[in-house]
């Protein structure tokens, strides 16, 4: 479903000169699979996801989503993906119904199909009781449900989630986990980045560790364990970054 081939993204910065955010990132994520991107801050996770979502244009390489090239037909690529990130805001002056309806219309839904999709998503995520309340007035948990509903309003086969549980409490994070697992069961391809090791260990079928714009390791949990000789994902992750836990200067 997602095929990234040598993705490169260079930014020009007055202070730093040319900065390589991505330096040949390649991986493949399949339908019905949860594929995790792990990496320290500034590793290139968000840039990778933004390039795949066609928000950023790669400097080199390309990717295909559902067989569609991100450079050749970005509009068609965006119809196939649902994208959300942990720090993404919402239209606070709109109600959940208005916001969902807006994104559904952008995805070409109208008339009966729009109404039936709205009913389905609002019912599935338990939004009905506050569907006509302005989003600004909702609790964090309620907003999170609206954000997820927005991501799947057009029933995309691919979900790209950038640190979706960042800053959320345990019940709200649980909601995200349940959403990812149920999406996986319906055959969707889920690509997500996270900092939370437990979450990645619990959800991901395969993981790619990204560091300094490159994929340094990729595989199932068992493959990564045997590669590093470590058990917990946290230890595996640190070993792949070349940082030994409890060593001087190690990340606590």
């Amino acid at each position: 479903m997602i095929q990234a081939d040598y993705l490169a993204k260079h930014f020009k910065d007055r202070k730093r000169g040319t900065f390589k955010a991505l330096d040949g990132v390649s991986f493949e994520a399949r339908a019905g699979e949860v594929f995790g991107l792990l990496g320290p801050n500034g590793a290139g996770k968000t840039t990778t996801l933004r390039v795949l979502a066609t928000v950023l244009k790669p400097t080199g390489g390309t990717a295909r989503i559902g067989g569609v090239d991100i450079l050749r037909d970005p509009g068609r690529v965006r119809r196939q993906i649902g994208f959300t990130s942990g720090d993404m805001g919402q239209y606070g002056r709109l109600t959940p119904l208005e916001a969902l309806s807006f994104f559904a219309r952008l995805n070409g839904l109208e008339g009966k199909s729009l109404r039936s999709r709205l009913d389905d998503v609002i019912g599935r995520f338990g939004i009905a009781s506050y569907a006509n309340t302005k989003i600004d007035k909702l609790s964090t948990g309620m907003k999170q449900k609206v954000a997820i509903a927005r991501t799947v309003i057009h029933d995309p086969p691919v979900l790209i989630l950038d640190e979706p549980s960042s800053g959320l409490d345990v019940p709200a994070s649980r909601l995200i986990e349940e959403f990812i697992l149920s999406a996986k069961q319906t055959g969707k391809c889920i690509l997500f980045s996270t900092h939370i090791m437990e979450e990645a260990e619990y959800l991901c079928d395969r993981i790619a560790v990204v560091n300094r714009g490159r994929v340094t390791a990729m595989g199932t949990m068992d493959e990564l364990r045997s590669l590093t000789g470590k058990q917990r994902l946290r230890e595996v992750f640190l070993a792949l970054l070349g940082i030994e836990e409890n060593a001087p200067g190690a990340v606590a």
Partner: protein
Amino acid sequence: MSAKIASVIYRKEMLELLRDRRTLISMVLVPLFALPILFGVMSLVLEWQQKEAERDSYIVAVNPACGKMMETVLAAAGFRIKPAAQARRAVESKAVAAALDVTVANGSKQYVVYSDRTRPSSSIAGERMSVTLAAMKEVSVRQSLRGTGISEQVLTPFTVRAVNVASERKMNGLLLGSSLAYLVVLLMFTGAMYPAVDTAAGEKERRTLEALLCSPAGRDEIVLGKVLACATASLLTAVLAMASLVYSYRYMRFGIVPDATNFNPLDPRTFSLILLSVAPISVLAGSLMVAVSLFAKSYKEGQSYLTPLLMAVLFPAVLGTLPGLELTPALALVPIFNVCQIVKEIFVGTFSPAAFATACAANLTYATLAFLAATRIFRSEGVLFRV
């Protein structure tokens, strides 16, 4: 580019704008109420000033050296006279509105009228005193002529009658057109300012832009939706400002036009022509403001970026109010100025269809260029993801 997608974005933007207090204030309240209030207060102050000046202008000083005869004549003309040996000083110290002194120049008597032209009451008093003295001088000349046998007719070889060929509508149109064009154009830009900041920098600040960029909507469609929403806000501001200005003009007196209550400048034809001429300006305002505020990463920063643009608009708008400037084919190409002139000419009733078409075409071209610039900026990753 899909018009359907752009219209979905436009409707969302309008819904958001209509729920934003700041936008509502700049788009509806300011044009609707600020101008009548401003003109109402101005009207009251002017009326009060005129009454004060009128009353004070009759208090004058006369140097006793001018003689009893002079005092009697001035008193008969309605002046309240205060004796003052130092006439100039009496005016400077504001003890009186004007003062009369007498000196001798080239062997003949010379009356000196002192007034302070910066004070309305003094200015009126000085003029009135000069007129009284001129009349007195004429009486004196006539009396002298009677003794010589020369006909008094020699003093009036011909008379002059000035006729203003401009109709009342034209006069009202000129007065209203000059102020209305300038204020409406300025308000159109302020009316588009908050919506532009809200839809561009505001969307960045609220972190909602990325969700929009990840949707199937293309960049051009997003910009079109946003620009059209700002243009609508700008046009709505123009319509409300025009309505409130015309109302203020008709029902509030400024001491300029005695009565304009029968003056109805916003007939359907005039209204349609003005709307047609300002419509491209609304798109220009929307595009420019969206383009500039895209560089900002917060609402506050967006406002700071747009303030110089408002200043830049002010200059050609003020030029457009200057009397005597006419819309030549070359000047019809100057944005903002051309629409101010066209609106003025539509009110006066002297507009030329060729100049109107040239100005509209020029403004439409500028609006298109500004829109293209906005779309180009919106495609720039450096601008959109500036941290």
